[in-house]
């Protein structure tokens, strides 16, 4: 593969509420035993990209912990490897990353010291499966300066970067989070660009004290550069809001999605934990649920996603919920339409339900402490 990878995983996201008080969005748990960044990392690895940098800033500890060893993704090679770039202080600068373009600029030596002709920039919070070889082929065929991987969306268009294309799929207009969305094509935040051009654009950007990749590079140069849209006609979701995070997890209760991501080669990789098998004791009743290793189930679980080491006590009912790693649910509890944060302790007889439809309640350890 003639490209290196950059995964932007630094962003702060308030819409995930308590769940991202201590977690980077890219470290959000997905589908029982994965984390959001696994998808981008695996896509890169599976496309033959052997050198990847993860740029992180906000709550980076959770992410760094997950990326503690590049062994898990087979990145621990002599050639290439996995780099994690957090902000640092030098003689000339002591600033946090002021934006995505600035984050790349502060690590520009990574790009300058490489030899790969292309760079692929991806997001740490995108759940999708994509072969970058095909995107690169497309990029070369269109003689594009920048290729943006795009998807068609029906809802919540105002949350995305909207793209308008001509008949050749060249992008003629790009509007970030439009008030009045036109069309249905959105940017997934995955870009292919020649490495030298990226350096050039980022340096120009920095000189003018501009810091954001989307507004200061993509939108600013949309007319001057040949920017093309590559349509990804398959599953793609970002976990930008609580409902979308909830939905992404629930999507994995469908066999076709599990097959696509986890069984059809090449599959999504993650850090493996050494948990014992999931255990279902006398009295357990399960239906349409994912239940990861290390779980011990004594009660009833319906239409839910249980991460590792979850305990469900006798006569408890968990329904339409996401229960993260190591959560403990005592006896005679009801947990419905909830996202229970990792290591939360729900004492015997507790009831956590929501008022209305589509309402999701976040239950985190903190709530337990304050009563």
């Amino acid at each position, binding site marked *: 593969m003639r490209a290196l990878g950059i995964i932007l995983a630094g962003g702060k996201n308030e819409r995930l509420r308590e769940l991202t008080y201590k977690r980077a969005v890219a470290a959000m748990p997905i589908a029982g035993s994965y984390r959001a960044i696994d998808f981008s990392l695996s896509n890169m690895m599976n496309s033959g990209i052997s050198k990847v940098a993860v740029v992180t800033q906000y709550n980076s500890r959770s992410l760094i912990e997950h990326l503690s060893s590049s062994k898990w993704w087979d990145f621990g090679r002599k050639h290439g490897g996995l780099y994690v770039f957090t902000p640092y202080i030098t003689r000339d600068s002591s600033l946090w990353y002021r934006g995505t373009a600035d984050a790349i600029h502060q690590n520009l030596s990574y790009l300058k010291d490489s030899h790969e002709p292309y760079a692929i920039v991806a997001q740490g919070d995108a759940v999708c499966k994509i072969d970058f070889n095909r995107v690169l082929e497309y990029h070369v065929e269109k003689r594009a300066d920048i290729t943006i991987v795009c998807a068609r969306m029906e809802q919540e268009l105002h949350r995305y970067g909207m793209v308008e294309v001509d008949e050749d799929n060249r992008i003629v207009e790009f509007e970030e989070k439009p008030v009045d969305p036109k069309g249905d094509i959105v940017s997934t935040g995955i870009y292919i660009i020649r490495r030298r051009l990226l350096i050039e654009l980022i340096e120009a950007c920095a000189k003018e004290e501009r810091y954001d990749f989307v507004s200061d590079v993509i939108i600013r140069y949309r007319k001057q550069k040949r920017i093309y849209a590559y349509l990804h006609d398959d599953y793609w979701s970002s976990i930008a809001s609580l409902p979308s995070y909830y939905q992404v997890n629930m999507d994995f209760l469908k*066999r076709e999605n599990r097959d696509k991501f*986890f069984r059809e080669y090449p599959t*999504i990789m993650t850090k493996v934990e050494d948990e014992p098998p999931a255990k279902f004791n006398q009295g357990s009743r399960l239906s349409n649920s*994912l239940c990861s290793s290390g779980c011990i189930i004594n009660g009833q679980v319906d239409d839910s996603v249980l991460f590792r080491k979850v305990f469900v006590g006798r006569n408890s009912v968990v329904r339409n919920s996401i229960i993260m790693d190591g959560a403990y649910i005592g006896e005679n509890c009801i947990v419905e339409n909830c996202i229970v944060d990792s290591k939360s302790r729900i004492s015997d007889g507790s009831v956590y339900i929501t008022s209305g439809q589509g309402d999701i309640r976040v239950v985190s350890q903190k709530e337990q402490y304050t009563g």
Partner: protein
Amino acid sequence: MKKKEIIAMLLAGGQGSRLGVLTTHLAKPAVSFAGKYKIIDFALSNCINSGIDTVGVVTQYQPLQLNRHIGIGIPWDLDKSYGGVAILPPYVSKESNTWYTGTANAVYQNIPYVAYYNPEYVLILSGDHIYKMDYEMMLNYHKKRNADCTIAVIQVEPEEASRFGIINTDEENRIVAFEEKPKEPKSRMASMGIYIFKWKALREALVLSEANHDDSDFGKHIIPYLIEQKYRLFAYQYEGFWRDVGTLDAYWETNLELVGLVPDFNLYEAYWKIYTKNEILPPQYIAPGSYIEKCILGEGTEIYGSIYNCVIGSGVIVEAGAVVRDSILMSGVTVGEGTRIDKSIIGENTCIGKGVRMGEGEFRTNGEYPQIYVSDITVVGENSSVPDGVSIGKNCALYGQLVPEDFPEGRLESGSNRIKEEVEQ
């Protein structure tokens, strides 16, 4: 000079012939246990948990799967620049080109491996027992008594004692006699096949025993020799859970013990983890309309049917309408729609067709192998397949790509076998 205080030699060369078709193409230590694990994982995990980071795994019988499983030792953190895990198959040299002829001979032939680490002590283990043990405590005991050899022992029932190496000690736990599988055991203290030696003493005994015996063995030659020569041998009492899963019965029972509410052998303690080579697999999925009680399930397993009292490995699929009870399904098994399986052991990656009945009818003695298949458990080997719609009795052994023609009238009576050798790995 670089050296290791203690290194372990793990004897994993045995076939485990009493496990029948389960060990047709793999050594006993490579047989699955508790769903996602292999039998050897317990000894390997004990080593690293006890702080022993240098392990030589002595292989001989069908080592391919064992090699693949251990690799460079990453799951056990045994991928080290000095030490770590090494696989030691038999080799050809100027003086000899023999297989390993006995347990002590196997270590004798690997003296250069041990000597490279110049250890003070050598721990000898066998790769076919299920237990958690802190070898460091045993080493401390060994050092404290300035022993030449310490043997871990466990109390067994008197009627079982004649199956083991039985040890007699004086009041200070010093070993005064050792009898291999005695007809009339004088004590209930059985050797667990776990020894710590002073390397100097072991080396002398290995060389001497090799000169006198063609099949130099720890139980038969080394230990009796050391006792005779008045070396200091001590017994180290072990009181935890320890099982030899060498027979199909013991294998089945020890597995099924794990599904108890709080089993004696608890895999769920955060302390003393058991490590294994984990495939990256999605979580276990339990479908609507399925039923699951008293089971343990490995990663990536999907249950659409009903399972009760089962130990199930990773990546298993039980299709809708299938009912599996009191059984062990190893990793990668698929069970077709409407199939019914009772008290069976199904080897890795085996495919059971639709509408199969297995474990039906009355118990009958196994015609061909009455010593191996002695209970009502039906066993299917790895990488095999059983065609749709056939009915199979109790105490049967099956292996290979079976086709409907292998089942006259679609049946296999209790106590009969269908074993086809040509199986693609």
